[in-house]
């Protein structure tokens, strides 16, 4: 049973921030509500006030400018999935969206809401980490910017202080000769990840050396994480199968997976070892073609 609440529908970001400042702790932000309503039905969350930002049109956009592509926080998953700019510049992001839950959820749910939900098994965050995205958080005293990899703090906990809202996601322009991929391992195709891996590889000019690599993992720690040590194994080297295998082994040491009804801790580690090399290799192949 959902407890009743007072419902506000600000029309601008400013109005929304004013409401958040006023109601503080007793208040929750809803946008697509695809996660929040489930928590409310289970009685896990029971806010007195709800600030509904679904109607704030100034937060729903996909803009392409010199700093990269900017996605407003209330942009639906479906808009990201269908965007010509995204498909062209960051195909991995659109591909990730096609496997995120169902069409219905993507039609109403938003990418900002997903990021703020802080589910370590969520799909967008690993991809955004691999793409080196930053988040713009708005508050009563202005905005601040934070790399997406630092945003998640713990299970379902993100770096949003009272009165703050996620406003925008910025993805920098991909360097030349970069390829990125995402996969999630699960049993049912459209399900949440048991383990997910996003990888982005940038090749140096001509010589085939891995100039930069970013590897992000989902569902193997309290938050989505970046496997920095694994990246180090590959960075500045010509990628070989042996190095990839090593990167997988190293990535596994960076995780702290749990055992649950879907997979044991041990199995999750093995999946990391299998999927990190496989996905990095795919990213490499894409980089070569780029």
């Amino acid at each position: 049973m959902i407890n009743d609440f007072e419902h506000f529908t600000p029309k601008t970001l400013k109005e929304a921030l004013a409401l958040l400042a006023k109601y503080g702790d007793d208040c929750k932000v809803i946008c697509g509500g695809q996660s929040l309503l489930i928590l409310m039905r289970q009685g896990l969350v029971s806010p007195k006030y709800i600030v509904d930002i679904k109607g704030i049109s100034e937060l729903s956009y996909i803009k392409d400018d010199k700093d990269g592509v900017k996605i407003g926080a209330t942009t639906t998953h479906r808009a990201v999935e269908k965007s010509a700019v995204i498909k062209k510049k960051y195909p991995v992001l659109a591909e990730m969206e096609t496997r995120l839950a169902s069409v219905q959820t993507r039609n109403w749910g938003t990418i900002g809401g997903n990021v703020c939900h802080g589910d370590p098994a969520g799909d967008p965050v690993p991809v955004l980490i691999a793409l080196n995205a930053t988040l713009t958080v708005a508050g009563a005293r202005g905005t601040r910017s934070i790399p997406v990899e630092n945003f998640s703090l713990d299970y379902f906990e993100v770096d949003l202080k009272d009165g703050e809202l996620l406003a925008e996601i910025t993805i920098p322009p991909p360097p030349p000769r970069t390829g990125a991929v995402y996969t999630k391992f699960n049993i049912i195709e459209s399900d949440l990840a048991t383990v997910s891996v996003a990888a982005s590889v940038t090749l140096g000019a001509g010589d085939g050396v891995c100039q930069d690599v970013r590897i992000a993992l989902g569902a193997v720690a309290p938050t989505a994480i970046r496997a920095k040590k694994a990246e180090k194994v590959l960075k500045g080297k010509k990628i070989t199968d042996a190095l990839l295998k090593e990167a997988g082994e190293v990535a596994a040491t960076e995780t702290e997976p749990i055992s649950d009804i879907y997979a044991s801790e041990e199995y999750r580690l093995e999946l990391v070892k299998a999927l990190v090399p496989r996905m990095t290799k795919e990213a490499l192949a894409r980089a070569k073609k780029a």
Partner: protein
Amino acid sequence: MKKELKFKVNGQPYEIFVKPKTLLVEVLRDLVGLTGTKRGCSSSSCGACTVMLDGMAVKSCSVLALQANGTEVVTVEGLAKGNELSPLQRAFLDHGSYQCGFCTPGMLMSSTALLTENPRPTKLEIKEGIDGNICRCTGYNAIVRAVTAVVKGEYKEAK
């Protein structure tokens, strides 16, 4: 405190006062009285409550009714034109794309939204389009066949 919800359902305007916590599915079933839309879970997982909201498929158990303010909702009751069933409805009949029928309204709404957006989906796209809907009876393939038949033009829209 109740708030006013103004929206259209199957073309008919409604003005209803609802508690903010009311879900779209509850308004449709309990207040508007359209019980074709079903509910099969409470975790946004089964798709039985799927309706079209401004042309998009959404799970009406996962949308606050007040968020539908100013929108146009189409439910399964809005698919037929008078006594003429829609092409998908007829294709479902011919292909046995339902058994117990409890998921059928949601399946039809997902399929209708799919074809509204993409009139020529591939088989994979059809499967993706109904992947948010669980059917415990048919095994889905009969539903995919029905949608495919409509895509192929085997069922014409009623005039």
